[in-house]
C-alpha cells in the first residue's frame, strides 16, 4: 500500500534522513521505533508531503506521491495524528471532527463517519459542544484520532500515540486502534513505548540517527538482543 524507496530528507541545510526505505502492506499495523531526534516525525511528515525528498520516491497504491502538497495527500486517503495532537483548539469537538471530513469525497458521508467515530470514542459525543482546548490529554488524543478518521482514510499515520497519556488510557486507545485495523484501516504507529507498540503491531522498523538500522516482524524485534537492550530496557 505504502512504498517508501530510499528517501533522503533535508530540513533547511541539515540532512535528517538517509536512504530510508519502508513498506506497509494493506491491512497491517507497522511500528516505527527510534530514540528522540532520530527523525521519526520527519519521516511521517515526508509521507504527508510536508517535506519533499531530495532523492528517492514515495508510492501510495502504486502512485508516486513524492513532491505532492499535503492537502492533496489528505485527499487521496492518507490521514495523520500529529505529535502533540495539534487540534484546532478554539473550535469545538464537533467542529474539529467536521474539519476532518474536509476533503470533498469525505463530506458526503460526514454524518456516517461521525456515528462511526462516536461509536469508537463515546466520550467525544458527550463532549461534542466543548472547546477542544479544554479536553483532558486522553480525550484530546481521541479527538485527534477521530478527526483523522473523519476523512475515511485507507492509511492512518500516528505520531507518538501514548505520549503524555496514562497507562490505562493508552491501553484503551491501542485496543481501539486494533479494532480500527480489523475494520480495514492500515496503520503506521510511531511510539516511544517499544514493548507496547510491538505487542499490537505486525512488523516494526528501527530508525537511528536518520537511518533504518533494523526491521522485522514484531516477535523478531521483541526478541532481538539490541532492541531488548536499547528500547525495552532489559
Amino acid at each position, binding site marked *: 500500500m505504502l512504498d517508501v524507496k530510499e528517501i533522503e530528507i533535508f530540513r533547511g541545510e541539515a540532512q535528517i534522513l538517509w536512504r530510508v526505505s519502508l513498506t506497509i502492506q494493506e491491512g497491517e499495523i507497522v511500528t516505527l521505533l527510534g530514540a528522540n531526534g532520530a527523525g521519526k516525525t520527519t519521516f511521517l511528515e515526508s509521507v*504527508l508531503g*510536508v517535506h519533499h525528498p531530495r532523492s528517492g520516491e514515495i508510492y501510495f497504491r502504486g502512485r508516486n506521491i513524492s513532491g505532492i*502538497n*499535503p*492537502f492533496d495527500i*489528505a*485527499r487521496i486517503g492518507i*490521514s*495523520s495524528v*500529529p505529535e502533540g495532537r*495539534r487540534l*484546532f*483548539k*478554539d*473550535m469545538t469537538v464537533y*467542529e474539529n471532527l*467536521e*474539519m*476532518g471530513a*474536509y*476533503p470533498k469525497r469525505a*463530506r458526503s458521508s460526514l454524518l456516517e463517519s461521525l456515528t462511526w467515530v462516536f461509536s469508537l470514542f463515546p466520550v467525544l459525543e458527550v463532549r461534542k459542544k466543548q472547546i477542544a482546548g479544554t479536553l483532558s490529554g486522553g480525550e484530546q488524543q481521541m479527538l485527534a484520532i477521530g*478527526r483523522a478518521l473523519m*476523512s475515511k482514510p485507507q492509511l492512518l499515520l500516528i505520531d507518538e500515540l501514548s505520549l503524555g497519556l496514562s497507562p490505562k488510557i493508552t491501553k484503551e486507545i491501542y485496543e481501539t486502534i486494533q479494532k480500527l485495523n480489523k475494520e480495514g484501516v492500515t496503520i503506521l504507529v510511531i511510539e516511544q513505548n517499544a514493548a507496547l507498540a510491538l505487542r499490537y503491531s505486525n512488523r516494526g522498523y528501527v530508525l537511528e540517527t536518520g537511518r533504518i538500522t533494523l526491521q522485522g516482524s514484531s516477535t523478531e524485534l521483541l526478541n532481538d538482543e539490541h532492541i531488548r537492550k536499547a528500547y525495552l530496557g532489559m
Partner: protein
Amino acid sequence: MYLTNGIVIGIIYAISALGVTLIVGIMKVVNFAHGELYVFAGYFSYYMSVSLGLSPLVAMPLSVFLVFLIGLLMEKALIRPTYGDDMYSLIVTFILSIVLQNLALLIFGPYPNKPPNLIFGATNLFGLFYYGNQRLLSFFISLAILLFIFYLIKMTWFGKSIRAVSQDREMASRIGIDHYRINMLSFGLGAALAAAAGVILSPIFPVTPSGSAAISLTAFVVVVLGGMGSLKGCLVGGLILGIIENLGAAYISTMYRGIFGFILLILVLVFRPWGLYGQKT
C-alpha cells in the same frame, strides 16, 4: 443624534476593520494598502455611476467586486512570495500603499469626489429628530454585510477552513485544506471589505487619494482596540470609536475628531494591550 451618527459610522468602521483583521488573523500580514483599496472603490463607484451612468445600486457591488479581484491579484503576485517573512510582507504592503496612492492621484486627480446618493430625504427617528435616509440605508447595508461575514466565518466550510488555517496552517493543510487558496480568497475578501466601507461611506464623506492613510489608521485603531484577529472585537471597537468620535466632535470640538481615537488607542495599549476581545499571548 450624535449617538446615532456614531453607531452608523461605527458599523462602517467595523466593516473596514474586519478587512484588516481577517488578513492579519489568517496570513499574519498587515495590509497597509487597506485605505487605498477603500479609496479606489470610492472612485470606481463614482465613475461608474457619474460617468457611465450606472445606477449606484449596480455601481456599488461592481466596484466592490473589482477591488476583490484586485485583492486576489495582489495576493498572488506580491504577497505570496513573502510568506514566512513578516518583515518583508510589511514592506511590500507599505510600498504598495504608496504606489496605489500615487496611482489614484494620477488617475483620479486630487479633488474629492462623491458618488450620488442612493436615496434622498430624511426620516423621523424615535420621534426625536430627522435623520438622513442615505445614512440610515448605509447603516442597514453595513449591518447586512456584517451579518453575512459572521455567517460566512462561523457556519460555512470556507469560514471554518479560514479559522483552521489561522490556528494551525500546517495542520490545516494536512487535513486537506488548500491554504494557498484560502490565503488568496481571504486577502480578496479583506480587500472587498475595505471596498465595501469605501462605497458605503463615500456618498457621506467624499473620497480623496490623500485620505487613504487616515482610513487605514482608523481601521488599525479599531483592530487594536477590539483585539487582533477578533471579529466581535471589530464590531465593538468600531462602534466605540464611531460613538466617541462623534460625541467628542459634538461636545468638545470637531477640530480634534481624529484625536479621540488616538487617545483611546493609547489607553487601550497601556491598560489592555491585547485589546478588548483579543487573546493574551
